[in-house]
């Protein structure tokens, strides 16, 4: 909202038709975007009974943290917490590994909830606060969560975070697109379930400047995610745990070296 206001008034100032209502200008400014850009957020082919999945192309990922940051503002994630973060596979954050032929190597692993088909977090939750919805999204019902954190102990991926105290926000930040969760409850990536309801792809997918995230319906044979899975495969993280994640990773075909 605030951004379009700024954009709107800037355009109004530049406009030769002085005095025209700002609201009209603002609308036309957005309408003026090329159709390709507007379509970006929309989910491609979907079936009647979707089963959402995500594919992360680690070859394309440039480790910029855009998806991690937009996830915070989209979902009103409190300070000190992240639903989505980018791990660095090197010796340390800023130290690449020395590879086979003396080349420096570094890779990134964007990590959020894997939306496991056989979700350990769901099995152990004593109150069924953690559940899988009809479209395969693993959800936390904050009203039922008693804060036992059993799910956090059970999740092999370490993607759940707990509201240790009253959720705090950065100065000037009001709220995201969903309600903040109460103190004493557990939260995690919801696959932007509120956007799915509107036919929109999750925020992190739309915001990725490298287009490293592909989102879609695993039940629709022609969806782009299924085509890529067929063509290039897609690894599951910690496959040996048998959790069957619906988030998959495309391995780099060529190791990124510096």
């Amino acid at each position, binding site marked *: 909202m605030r951004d379009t206001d700024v954009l709107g008034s800037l355009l109004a100032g530049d406009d030769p038709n002085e005095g025209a209502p700002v609201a009209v200008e603002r609308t036309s400014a957005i309408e003026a975007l090329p159709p390709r850009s507007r379509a970006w957020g929309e989910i491609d082919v979907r079936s009647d009974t979707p089963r959402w999945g995500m594919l992360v192309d680690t070859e394309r990922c440039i480790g910029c943290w855009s998806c991690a940051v937009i996830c915070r503002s989209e979902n009103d994630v409190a300070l000190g917490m992240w639903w989505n973060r980018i791990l660095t596979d090197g010796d340390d954050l800023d130290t690449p590994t020395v590879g086979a032929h003396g080349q420096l190597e570094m890779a990134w692993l964007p990590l959020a909830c894997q939306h496991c088909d056989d979700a350990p977090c769901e099995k152990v939750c004593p109150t069924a606060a953690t559940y899988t919805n009809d479209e395969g999204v693993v959800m936390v019902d904050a009203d*039922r969560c*008693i804060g036992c954190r059993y799910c956090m102990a*059970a999740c092999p991926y*370490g993607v*759940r975070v707990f509201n*240790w*105290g009253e959720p705090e926000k950065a100065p000037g930040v009001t709220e995201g697109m969903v309600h903040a969760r109460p103190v004493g409850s557990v939260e995690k990536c919801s696959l932007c379930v509120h956007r799915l309801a509107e036919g929109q792809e999750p925020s992190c997918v739309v915001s990725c400047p490298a287009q490293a995230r592909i989102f879609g319906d695993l039940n629709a044979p022609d969806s782009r995610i299924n085509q890529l899975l067929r063509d290039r495969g897609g690894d599951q993280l910690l496959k040996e745990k048998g959790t069957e994640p619906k988030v998959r990773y495309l391995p780099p075909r060529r190791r990124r070296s510096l």
Partner: protein
Amino acid sequence: MTTLAPPGSPTPATGQRRRAGLLWYVALAVGLAIGLFSFGYQLSAGLTVTGLTNTVTWGLYIVLFMFLVGVSAGGLIVVAGGELVGSHQLESLNRLAVIVSGTAVAAAAVSIIPDLGRPWLAWHMMVGPQWMSPLVWDMAVISIYLAIAGVDLWILTRPEPMARWLRIMAVVTLPVAVLVHSVTAWIFGFLVARPFWNTAILAPLFISSALVSGTALVLIVAWVVRRVSTWDPPAHVFTDLAKLLAWFVAVDFFLLLAELVTAYTSQTAYHLAPLEMLFGGRQAPLFWGQLVLGVVLPFLVYVNPRLRTRMGLLVGAATLSVLGVFAKRVNILMPGMYEPQIALPPGVPAGRADQTFELGALYVPTWVEYGVVVGILAFSATLITVGVRRFVIPRSDGS
């Protein structure tokens, strides 16, 4: 607890005993007050006042829970086991043992509450339980166990002996006792995310540790009650308990050894990481300390006929056993918590507003957690004191 015994007077004068008793009650009240204050503070501020983070999500409260569930084994097994093998050696300890057990299991149930982020919603667990969760099974078996302790105490305190019922109860008690410890172990053991916990030996190990700490605590409480009151069990019960303890400690050690050797010889990173933490890492002092002070030393006292008849040594050994089992619980919980499966930088979001990420952060409990633990221990000691005064110490005592 031992402060109750005025030094050097096996049969203290009534006045002296009254004064010691009063002091004991004051200590209990202070302990309860500390616990309530700490818990109230935590309720108002949230779990942010504990040392827990998104990496170490379970800490001191869960250790205390594991420990208290374990301690509850001793009493009921002394009663039921003796009954089943037809031994009346330890019969004089029956009431005391049941009181210690019942108290421990009640305190275990209480100790889960401060660990919850939203304890006021805990009723969801009873109204809409999710039966796949080992936590729900544990709630069920703990309730049954508590009921059994109540019924046992009722039977034991009837004026006319009810031998037949005691026998029936014994048959019910043993399987439930085995279940309580197994299910508590499975809370941890079923998690594929935690290699160190995810082992079949965890349930047997919990049972053996439970037997050690439970029996040792019955011994300690019996000794204290004998010193401060007119209750006088036959002297052989203490050596009998010592002999039992020798077996329990040996089995407990053997099971631990079996697990460690298996994990070590596998030589996979997956198994080795927690072992490194125990053998040479941050848990090493507690691990080696527990082996020497909590296993070897007490064992030497229990097996040696000359040492185990010296009361001071025996009670000291039992105290070391109890503390040793507590340390062992810490050493089971922490390596499981410290080792994330995906340990790449920058790590896991720490969770507080002024923190960013952490990788391998150290867990240090805060005063709030210690305060709550003090409160729960004071609560247990109060129940035991009231129970013992009411049901164990002969009425003619006048107290």
